[in-house]
């Protein structure tokens, strides 16, 4: 059941998973589609800043899954959506973690991905009316 607010805004038409997918690919896009401008801007700013700071700290973007821990890291990184694919395509991030801040950077990138997934699910919940 769609929320009253979404019905008034006319955003409960179309593909129900669009905010989820858009929110995953581009941080904050799911909320922007639902006209939640403030929430979308804050989500976008937080995720992009966290990802950018992770790269600035020479964090590593996982590329393959050689063991279980790397596989989990890759799953977290994939949560960043297009940021992850752009980062891989442009060769950003360190190949190996050599300093302490680089380890922090790697965690920043993984957590940014996980937080982006939470935000995308939140956008989906707003779309379906499970959340106001």
């Amino acid at each position: 059941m769609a929320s009253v607010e979404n019905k008034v805004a006319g955003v409960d038409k179309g593909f129900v998973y669009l905010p989820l997918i858009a929110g995953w690919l581009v941080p904050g896009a799911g909320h922007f589609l639902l006209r939640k401008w403030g929430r979308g801007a804050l989500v976008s700013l937080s995720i992009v800043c966290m990802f950018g700071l992770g790269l600035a700290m020479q964090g590593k973007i996982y590329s393959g899954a050689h063991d279980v821990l790397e596989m989990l890291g890759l799953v977290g990184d994939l949560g960043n959506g297009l940021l992850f694919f752009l980062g891989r395509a442009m060769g950003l991030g360190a190949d190996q973690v050599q300093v302490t801040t680089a380890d922090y950077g790697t965690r920043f990138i993984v957590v940014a991905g996980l937080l982006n997934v939470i935000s995308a699910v939140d956008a989906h919940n707003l779309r379906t009316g499970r959340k106001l």
Partner: protein
Amino acid sequence: MFRPSHFTALVLFALFASVIFGITMRETPRRMVRYGVYCFSLFVGSAIVLSWLMYLIAR
């Protein structure tokens, strides 16, 4: 290259995570802000308490 101190990295991490937690876990703006501040305080506060505990244990 950005090389923050341990505490700066912690504060930045807590700030961004708290913003997302506040937005996604509560429904009204007022409650979002309150929950975000609560999460931020817990992140930073627990890190300070644990740091002091480890410092005292190591002595």
